[in-house]
């Protein structure tokens, strides 16, 4: 491991090359570069998750921690390592102080693995608009997590407003298990759905997205009923012929109930942040089904038709909250 204090981007690039040489891994492949944008207080959580994801995906991980944007002198500290604490891949943890934090891309661009896809992940409240963050602009895939915003419902809606193909949100990743179970329950039923309802927390973005997905697929309006339990307690679908399919979560198990059939019980463990991240990294193309579900939640249409490329919008936090829309 190489630790560099008050350094420059060039020195970091050199240190990474040196680590690769001494590690004997000059030829080892990187399937992607993951750029993690995180606050100092969440660094541990993000590191744990990225380490788990790195064990499944050979990647270069660049962690950007922005600190004290108002510090008078810009400064870069970096920690470069291979196959150590942060999983088997290459990782660079960078702390950027002062105005440098607004130009983080100047350090990360030369560090991206050549010609490999770039994934940006904000472990924290998602940016209001991804185009404000240059790290999100050059990423091919962008992963946010609206469940970490103060107002989760508004944040989810904002994701739809700001959506571009290639964006996904961990609130969506969290319901893959629910979706797989429901899709599997529907196999072998050949009736359309008359109505469907999600019981859970109506302020939970995952519950909202599940309802949005069901309504975009089944063609019926799907409400989220507040029941006061967990995020999603139960999904109930009534078919046109009156039969009911329901799925309940019950302490780490999922119970699937269909009329006239034995209940089926499957383990339904909650997945860790690292596992969610690993699922996201498996798909580097735009998730069109997510866009449809997000569209249904926010009543916006044509999300999939938006351009996948964003243009950076310069927004200086020092200049109050009146962004001057000028591309840099």
């Amino acid at each position, binding site marked *: 491991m190489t630790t560099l204090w008050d350094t420059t981007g060039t020195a970091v690039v050199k240190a990474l090359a040196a680590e690769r040489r001494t590690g004997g891994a000059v030829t080892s492949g990187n399937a992607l570069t993951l750029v993690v944008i995180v606050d100092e207080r969440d660094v541990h959580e993000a590191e744990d998750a990225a380490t788990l994801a790195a064990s*499944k995906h050979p990647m270069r991980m660049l962690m950007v921690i922005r600190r004290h944007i108002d510090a008078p002198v810009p400064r870069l500290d970096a920690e470069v390592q291979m196959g150590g604490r942060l999983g088997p891949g290459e990782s660079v943890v960078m702390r950027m102080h002062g105005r440098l934090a607004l130009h983080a891309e100047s350090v990360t661009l030369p560090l991206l693995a050549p010609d490999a896809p770039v994934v940006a992940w904000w472990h924290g409240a998602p940016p209001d608009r991804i185009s404000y963050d240059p790290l999100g602009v050059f990423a091919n895939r962008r992963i946010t997590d609206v469940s970490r915003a103060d107002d989760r419902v508004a944040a989810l809606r904002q994701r739809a407003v700001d959506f571009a193909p290639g964006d996904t949100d961990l609130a969506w990743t969290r319901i893959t298990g629910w979706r797989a179970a429901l899709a599997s329950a529907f196999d*072998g039923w050949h009736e359309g759905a008359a109505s469907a309802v999600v019981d859970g927390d109506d302020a939970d973005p995952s519950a909202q997205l599940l309802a949005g997905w069901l309504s*975009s*697929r*089944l063609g019926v309006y799907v409400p989220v009923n507040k029941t006061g339990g967990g995020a999603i307690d139960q999904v109930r679908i009534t078919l046109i012929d009156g039969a009911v399919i329901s799925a309940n979560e019950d302490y780490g198990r999922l119970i699937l109930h269909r009329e006239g059939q034995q209940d*089926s019980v499957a383990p339904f463990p909650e997945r860790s942040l690292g596992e969610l991240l690993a699922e996201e*990294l498996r798909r580097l193309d735009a998730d069109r089904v997510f866009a449809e579900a997000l569209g249904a939640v926010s009543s916006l249409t044509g999300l999939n038709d938006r351009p996948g490329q964003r243009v950076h919008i310069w927004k200086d936090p020092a200049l109050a909250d009146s962004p001057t829309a000028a591309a840099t």
Partner: protein
Amino acid sequence: MTEPGSTVTTVPAGSETATGDQTAVPVPAASPPGTVTERANPLRDPRDRRLPRVPEPCALVVFGVTGDLARKKLLPAIYDLANRGLLPADFALLGFARRDWGDGDFAALAKKAAKTHARTQWNDDVWRRLNENLQFVPGSFDDDQAFDTLAEALDNLRNTHGIKGNAAFYLSIPPPMFPVVLKQMERTGMASNERSGGWRRVVVEKPFGHDLDSARELNELVDTVFTANDVFRIDHYLGKETVQNLMALRFANQLFEPIWNSHYVDSVQITMAEDVGIGGRAAFYDATGAARDVLQNHLLQLLALTAMEEPVEFAAEEIRTEKIKVLRAVSLPPDLDASAIRGQYDQGWLAGERAKAYRDEEDIPPDSKTETYAAVRLGVETRRWAGVPFYMRTGKRLPRRVTEIGILFKRAPHLPFSRTDTQELGHNQLVIRVQPDEGVTLKFGSKVPGSSMEVRDVAMDFLYGEAFTEASPEAYERLILDVLIGDATLFPRNDEVEASWKVIDPLEEFWAGKAPYLYRAGEWGPKEADEMLARDGREWRRP
């Protein structure tokens, strides 16, 4: 990217999936011919690749469930599938074998087998759930009563598990048992799609016969009891990720196809080497030999995939059509004496341990003339491959376990360097490593650093484990899943099996009665095999 905008609330999913970009995703072959076309599941969408490919509710019946293959491969693969969430919510596993057991004993055996050999992490919850849907049906294969019980058990699943007639039968039993088991299935109507109201499929393991006639007989029997489309012949090599990648490498890239012909290819070497001996399979192996055991199926399948033309579409029928064309075009050299070499291992040292001679192995007659090594030069009589030799070899007790396909390219027609500069330069090679170290190697000449011009071979490596994000599943996992989904892409068709025997039969006829050459255990085969290539001015690649 040019997909029409999907409106939000009113989409009937069926039409949506039809227009969506379904490029690489093979159509989930859910409904086999014979079943009524049903409304597509609105919650499934080929673009939704987060959701696993899961079969319809179905049962899997394993005959010979207490056998070696079932314990070491099938049961663990089923557990792994369950653990990865790839089995349907309604799934039942029925074991059929001779022992007089209760469900409990079987459950214990199955758990032990799955736990010992599973690839994925052990999770008691997953097993408990699988266990609830486990049934054991004891009985011998000529016992009508037992088969009636089995048929009844399958019918009952309709009520208890919501499995509407779908079932796959895995024949993990010795081939001589096939006829009696198949007849029983015919008698009870178990094999009939119409009677069951769902699909009924059968999975057959190699050997598919021991020559052309017996293979034909077997095919006829299986194909009449079931329908030809419902028969899945397992060649576990085709379930390997690297073998499937061969098709991606050839047909998804622009780079390789232009040079994939006799203008640029000098020769092809396909090797499957094993370091082990014959293990506990003495009786079977001594009657079979390396050519029937490996060459007829695995190696010829690899040859077919290497040499075939581009299929019109990446679909089971189209791929099999191209493979059968190649297999029918395979030719034997006129002089079999010089280009069909058999070997048998003698005693020797392997990996630091003494290894017995084949004839000294337990239950092998001391005068056995069965081969444990076979090397043969084949041709493919098509415009693309005319004149390119395909050297195939397989053997036991070779220095290491390795399977690979080596494409050796011709030397450059003119080298502007002096002879001494390029002394170390060999053929350019593209090697597909099927196992172990799954990946692809490209060998080409490069300048040695220094003041003089010297060109030497270097290798460029692609290693699966490094570039990809997911661990490759075990071949049986993939193949069992494909059977339950009904995707026949990776299973050889009956006429492929017959075409392969047409290649092997003349070889066996030629070899009959002759003694194989001896080679020391731990060597790369008999020296006659090396001479065979030396006569053509070539040599074997050391894998």
